[in-house]
């Protein structure tokens, strides 16, 4: 970092430099320009078009110019918000994503703590195995999971039957709403815990050993150390991990689409992304789909902003 950035952050007047004072006001913008241009191109414009399209009756006929474009204002939103299925799907999504986030954080966090106490070769093995899960594309992972849980030929049912649980002979894991969600959730947790584990592990490693040692000398128990020293110091990292997981799990598409073949029996396993694909894009109702996209963006931005505010209040920067 150059000294000028530091002085800007501190709000101090710029020391007299090579350039005149008039340039000073533009200087931060000058440095930010490349990032802004990329952001506007890749984020700003698409979001603008998304909002724009959501206000029109915009179907394939309109895209290819066969029918006149009709401005419907908030019509698409009205249609969505008055549809009970939309609310049911939103409820499913929140529950499902919430469940996945909690389990992912618990499993990932627990394994991270475990990793700090393992012998190096065991830890390496754990990491290599987890990286395998992490590196598996969602589509492949879902397909493999489905093979494992196949009603008649899957390893899981065969094992359960061999153990004497004959109720699992031909048992379909995707038929019941909650068992189908559970099955998908297990795949989601499986492929997303490594990120949590690695990040939290790095965070624990970054805590200076002196601090812990000092606490131990003062007579703190292991539980106290974890609660009052390690957790607060891990907070920024936990925040990132939680926000990431919420965004990630809220947007789940491939796993549900593949494992419940497009939303389960009579659409019982629809989550918002699959719903928007099915209702809007596969059906060529782009206006409606964009409205759904806008609603999702707003929800996710609200979640992120709340967390950012929480962190800011505590005086910690990310």
């Amino acid at each position, binding site marked *: 970092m150059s000294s000028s950035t530091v002085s800007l952050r501190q709000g101090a007047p710029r020391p007299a430099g090579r350039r005149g004072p008039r340039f000073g006001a533009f200087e931060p913008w000058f440095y930010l320009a490349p990032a802004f241009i990329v952001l506007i191109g890749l984020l700003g414009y698409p979001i603008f078009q998304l909002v724009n399209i959501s206000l029109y009756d915009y179907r394939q006929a309109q*895209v*290819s110019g*066969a029918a006149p474009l009709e401005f419907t204002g908030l019509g698409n939103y009205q249609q969505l918000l008055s549809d009970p299925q939309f609310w049911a799907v939103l409820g499913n999504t929140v529950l499902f994503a919430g469940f996945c986030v909690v389990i992912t954080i618990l499993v990932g966090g627990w394994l991270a703590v475990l990793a700090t106490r393992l012998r190096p070769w065991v830890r390496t093995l754990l990491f290599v195995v987890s990286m395998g899960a992490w590196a598996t594309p969602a589509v492949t992972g879902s397909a493999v999971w489905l093979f494992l849980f196949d*009603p008649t030929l899957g390893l899981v049912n065969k094992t359960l039957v061999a153990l004497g649980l004959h109720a699992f002979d031909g048992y379909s894991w995707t038929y019941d709403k909650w068992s189908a969600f559970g099955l998908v959730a297990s795949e989601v947790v499986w492929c997303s815990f490594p990120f949590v584990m690695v990040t939290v592990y790095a965070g624990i490693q970054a805590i200076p050993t002196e601090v812990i040692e000092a606490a131990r000398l003062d007579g703190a128990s292991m539980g106290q150390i974890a609660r009052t020293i390690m957790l607060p110091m891990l907070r920024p990292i936990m925040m990132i991990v939680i926000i990431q997981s919420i965004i990630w799990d809220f947007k789940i598409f491939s796993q549900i689409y593949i494992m419940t073949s497009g939303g389960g029996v*009579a659409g019982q396993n629809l989550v918002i992304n699959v719903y928007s694909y099915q209702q809007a894009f596969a*059906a060529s*109702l782009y206006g409606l789909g964009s409205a759904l996209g806008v609603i999702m963006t707003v929800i996710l931005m609200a979640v992120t*902003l709340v967390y950012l505010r929480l962190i800011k209040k505590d005086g910690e920067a990310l």
Partner: protein
Amino acid sequence: MKISRLAAAVLASAALGLTACAPPTAGGGSASTKDETGGTLRVWLFSEVNQDPKSAVVNDAIKDFEAAHSGAKVDVQYIPTDSRAERFKAAFNDPSSAPDVAEFGNTDLANYVAAGGLADVSDVVKGWDEGKDLDPKILKTTEIDGKNYGVPWFVGVRALYYRTDLLQAAGLKAPTTLQEVETTARALRAKNPGTLGIAVGGKSQFSAMPYLWAYGGGIADQQNGKFASQLSSEKSKAGITAYTNLLNDDICPPQTCAEFGGNATVQQFIAGKADMAIGGDFNYKAVAAAPAVKGKFAVIPVPGTTAGSIAPAFAGGNNLGVFKSSTHRTLADDFVKLLAGKKYQQKMFQAMGNLPTFADVQKQVAGDNAYLKPFVDTIAAGTDFVPVTEQWATIDAQGIFTGMYQKVASGKSTVDQAAADATTAMDKVFGSGK
């Protein structure tokens, strides 16, 4: 706060932008006025798993065509069926990359017409000496507001496959009514507990439709240019009940069958795990070659509600059509008439097993190939089709029709409730279109 100021700026510019510009639309939708008699005619056909025989027939047709039209060349591209939606949409949006002639599924037709991509070929069919022999019910699947937008190239229908060995062992005869299909299936499963009495599926809509039609019901009716769902009529509900009766623990347990699509049901039969199944003429080769059922099965038309009658089958199949944006309209029409004509339909049947759409050609090939008889009889008894409107694509994508069967099969709804829900959902979609 920085963020809110930025947000305000974004909102303000968005509001400004909204009043200034509408979402992008292509200038397409209007017919080309050019009609060149030379140059390259671009053709899109679907690629097949078994591509070589199709290419060979098409190449013969091109040779014939180029010999009869000097100065014209034909450039064929084989496109994968999986990505056809994207391909066609792109072609409608950008006429310069569009073909002149294309093969497409008959259930996609209404959607393509609504997008303004297909040319009216009614005059081609009327002015064509072979046109009068096209099966009228199948030609009807290409018709919107009295105009034809495609020429049927081949047709596919489903019939009832059953295991002759298992029926004989159980002392049963082949079912002659839909009622007997149910009782036979139940008896077969009781005798062979590891198998499905008849493989049907909550998602296999094309085996559910014959039930609906056989009981006199229907999917939707058109009145004054607008469609209205017919699923809640008493006759329709009788058909839905008869079909969902099969999705029961003593025939085809919903645990297993509620999620089956059409292919999955045929796969069960091929694997020897189903005693009966509703499969298409296009499945016959695969079934006949399957070790588990080879030589142990027979096919009859899906019976109707009275003995001797045949349930109306769904007339699936593909058409050949002309793009509205084509700058070689006369050449394109001529090529369609050649490739979809009797001579090449016959060749396509020999190469690919595709059932011809001309009544006389059908009879002829059925005479030479005994296995086709139940399918040709089914077509002759009269077929039916999904509502020919772009909104059917929406209803299909949203799973409204199959969702109804799944709700009943899984015990989430009664037939009355599921049919009422589907009617409401369908009518909402029908009402939203033009």
